[in-house]
């Protein structure tokens, strides 16, 4: 079973996204701040990371940069899930090494489709 790390601090979104992923047979790990995101990614080596940008402690851009600079996590695809629709944020996230950028809100099918681009 493939493992997805969901980094998100909104309880209701966690519920929806987690359900959506579990139904599609993914194992889901959830952390709610940037610090735990880095720690968990290093220890658990998920197959994909879904990353919110506005997070407690360390923001998503920094998390992204950190993970992409570490040997053990640099190959894990990162899909940013964010309410920031500004072009500037997208550019910054891609520069920080994100593999894809999805703006909220999205529907279950859209999320599945995006994930399938990176893991089978």
């Amino acid at each position, binding site marked *: 079973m493939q493992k997805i790390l969901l980094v998100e601090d909104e309880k209701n*979104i966690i519920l929806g996204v987690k*359900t*959506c992923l579990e139904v599609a047979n993914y194992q889901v790990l959830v952390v709610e701040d940037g610090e735990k995101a880095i720690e968990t990614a290093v220890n658990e080596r998920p197959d994909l990371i879904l990353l919110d940008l506005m997070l407690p402690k360390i923001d998503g851009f920094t998390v992204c940069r950190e993970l992409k600079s570490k040997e053990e996590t640099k190959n894990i695809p990162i899909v940013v899930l964010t309410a920031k629709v*500004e072009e500037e944020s997208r550019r910054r996230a891609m520069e920080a090494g994100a593999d894809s950028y999805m703006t909220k*809100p999205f529907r279950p099918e859209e999320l599945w489709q995006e994930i399938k681009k990176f893991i089978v």
Partner: protein
Amino acid sequence: MPLENYELIFREIPEAVILTDMECRILACNTLAEELLGTKGEDIRGRRIQAFLNSPPLMNLLDEAVMFARVPALNHENSVIELNIRGKRKYYKVSMKLFELQDPKSKTLLFTLTDITIIKEMEQHKTDFFAVASHEFRTPLTSIFMGVGMIKSGQLGQITPRGKEILEAIESDCTRLLQLANNLLDLSRMETGWISLELEDVSVYDVINAALATLKLQAEHKNIALYTKLPSDLPLVRADVNKIIWVVTNLVGNALRYTEEKGSIIVKAIRKGSRVIFSVADTGKGIPDTYHEKIFQKFVQIDGGTGGAGLGLAICKEIVEAHGGEIWLKSELGKGSTFSFSIPVGRG
């Protein structure tokens, strides 16, 4: 009134007023202008204005005025200049006038700078607010879309047909909320000149086809004939393709909402001189005369309408005008409405 009083009035006008000759040498300026130039108490008559104001856009305007002895066309964009006044960023609106002095007889340039910093700041607050509001809408909408989508898929347990209907209604209303949030954001950005157009030469056929592709199904669903009438020799237009597609989509979307079953919608485009005129004509119930002017304003809704927020047409107008075009409506009650807009032809 004695002449001295006029001089006093000139000095105290609550705007910066500067008078120069046709070589931009200062002839006179009032108290506020001296403050702005940072020359209070100095005699700066005869010195060139460039020595005191560091603003290339303003200098371009002045150069143009004195070179062609004609006031340049001022618009919302080129007439607002940014100055750094004692470390603070301030915005001024420039007005100009050329006229002949009596004694000695010579041409003069008079220009005023009106401090509009507070208006600029308010515009910025508004844009910031919409950005925050749009963001705050997106977060709860995500959990609603995800939750409804998951339940609707049946993967969490069986649902009844009525249950499914309700979920679909929730989804469609959430889509409406999302559109509202998007529109508010777009509109506020456009008003503050945030959205710059990416102009290129674009095929009218491509624009119309792209817009209609997303709406054909809706038309079929409602049993409305949606077709185009396009001459085969239309020139390219100079446009931001995505924004023009947005305008056409919005106009046709409105037509679909207000046209009854078995009605028809025709999308046309014709060349008229250096412009291409797009039009969307429907056989809906028409729009009363009283709305023809104000329908392009924000938050205007027609009584008995279908409950949009009244932003779509305001955005259409912003987009079309940013292209240097115009948008208008012709409508007759009971017969239908035709929305038209013009866009300059391409350069190619």
